[in-house]
Structures are given as structure tokens and as C-alpha cells.
């Protein structure tokens, strides 16, 4: 372990920071999660990995087979110090992590999630959205605009993704800090609206 190197690379938090909060950035392979986290993070994004047994392995076990496939999944994360006392962590992760302790760690206490989507393969966003719904984690959707990707009207994308009317849908460029910040802002505004609206709805 290069701990000396680690302390040289580390960017420490201001001593005044008292509160840390987290948001997830989720989406399928190559949708731009790492780019998005990298655009926003004040530190060079860090990565942790976890080895997981694939879902199919359970079936293999039941069949008495010795075959077990394991795969390594990675989580990239970044940090934004938002005030003297508050720091926001962004965890970028693929949905298949849900079978791991790392996923539990990430979702526990998370305020919400931003789902990144790609118009060339919208259907690949369904698994991650259903995982979030299972967990009751509120989310907004940001279409990461890739050059050459088809451009659809918002209504068409909503329909294709089967979004609830209240779920925010924005378009962003994950490479761009301002654009990515705006996407996060729409998520946080949505989370806020859930809090202010719930009491009346329960009446």
C-alpha cells in the first residue's frame, strides 16, 4: 500500500465541515456517470471496487452446479464542498451493484438519485429505474446528450421511459460543469417539492 502517496494525493475537507450528504448518479454502462461525476467534483474522482457474484449464480447453486461467476463492479465518486459546513458526495454507480453491501452503503441515507439516460438506448435505463423504485429512492432523469444521438421531444422521451408526470426530465451534457450542475439542481428541487407536498397529500 502506498499510504505516503495516498496522503500526498488526498485533498482534505475544510475543518469547518460538519455535515456530509450524498446523491447517487446511476445509469447503464457507458452512459456518462464517471464523466458527470468528474465534471462536478472538486477532487479527482475516486473509485472503489467490489467483487460480486452474479445474479445467475444463485440459479447455478440450486442446480447443484459448481460454476460460479464473479464480476468486479466499480463505484466512482466525487465531492463538492457546498459551504463552510456542508459537503456533498456524488456516487456514480451501475444498477447491478444492488446485490452488494456497497449498494446498501450507497443508498442508505442518500437523498435521491439522478438517472443518466442515452437516447440511443433508452430501454437500458429501465433496470436502474426499477431498482430505485424498489428501494423507494426518489429520482430525476437527465438525458446525457451525445453527439450524433437522436434528439426526441421531451414527451416522446417521457413516454419511452414511462416516467411519472412529476418526475423531472432534463437534458444535460455530462462533460460540462454548468450543465451538469443544472441537472443536479433539478433533482434537488424535486426532492424539496416531495417534502413540501407530502403533508397536504396525506390529508
Amino acid at each position, binding site marked *: 500500500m502506498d499510504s505516503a502517496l495516498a*496522503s500526498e494525493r*488526498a485533498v482534505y475537507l475544510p475543518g469547518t465541515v460538519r455535515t456530509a450528504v450524498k446523491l447517487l448518479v446511476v445509469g447503464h454502462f457507458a452512459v456518462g456517470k464517471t464523466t458527470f461525476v468528474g465534471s462536478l467534483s472538486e477532487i479527482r474522482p475516486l473509485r472503489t471496487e467490489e467483487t460480486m457474484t452474479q445474479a445467475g449464480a444463485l440459479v447455478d447453486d440450486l442446480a447443484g452446479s459448481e460454476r460460479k461467476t464473479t464480476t468486479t463492479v466499480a463505484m466512482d465518486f466525487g465531492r463538492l464542498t457546498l459551504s463552510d459546513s456542508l459537503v456533498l458526495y456524488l456516487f456514480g454507480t451501475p444498477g447491478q451493484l444492488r446485490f452488494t453491501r456497497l449498494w446498501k452503503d450507497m443508498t442508505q*441515507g442518500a*437523498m435521491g438519485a439522478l438517472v443518466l439516460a442515452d437516447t440511443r438506448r433508452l430501454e437500458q435505463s429501465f433496470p436502474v429505474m426499477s431498482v430505485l423504485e424498489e428501494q423507494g429512492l426518489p429520482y430525476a432523469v437527465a438525458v446525457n446528450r451525445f453527439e450524433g444521438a437522436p434528439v426526441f421531444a421531451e414527451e416522446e422521451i417521457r413516454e419511452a421511459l414511462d416516467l411519472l408526470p412529476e418526475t423531472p426530465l432534463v437534458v444535460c451534457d455530462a462533460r460540462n460543469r454548468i450543465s451538469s450542475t443544472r441537472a443536479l439542481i433539478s433533482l*434537488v428541487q424535486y426532492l424539496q417539492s416531495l417534502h413540501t407536498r407530502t403533508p397536504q397529500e396525506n390529508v
Partner: protein
Amino acid sequence: MSPGRRERGLVRPYVVTDGRAYPTRNTFDLVTLVMAHPDRPLAGLSPEKRGVMELCLGGALSVAEVAGYLELPVSVTKVLLGDLVDSGHITTRSPIPPAELPETQLLQEVLDGLRARL
């Protein structure tokens, strides 16, 4: 892509943690902030715990960052940190539970902070 990544050490994770898969305390969130006590002796600590201490003596970091910088799995990092809390080497600052700080207020602070970056 990440420059610091290199081949995994020869030491298996369960050796690092003395065979334990769970920390002695269950209080670590990924964003729990940890700080090292500068006046605690490092003698007798395992190389991995010494690594945690050397990293954390520089200032406050989250559990996730400690794992990331030391290139250790989060589960292993939590075991090491748990021991170091028990031995008085590390103190933690947990994410503030919603009961203490209303989530609406927290969300407003997040929103203000994000808007200030535009």
C-alpha cells in the same frame, strides 16, 4: 485511467481484517467523516492501520475517500476504522441524522450551494 491504480497487494482482504467481515461498530456510513488524533502512538499498528492513520492525520475525509485513496474495499476500510475508533486513534463525525437537522433545510442548503456554482 486513474493514475494511482496498480495491482492488488498480495495480502488478502481477510488477512488485513484478521478474518473479520464486519467492523466492531456499525456506525460507518460512506460519508461519515473521520479524523485522526495526532497524539496517539502508531507503534503496534498493522501496516494497513498505519496507512489509514498516515492518510487521516492530514485532515478530515469521508470513509469512502479513505477506501478510495488506500485502494481498499469499503468493507475492509470499515473494519480497520472500527478498530481505530475503539483504540482511540480515530474520531468520527456521522452524517447528521434528519431528526437533528430537518431534511428540507438541508436540501435548501444543498440547493443554495449548487446555485452558487453556476
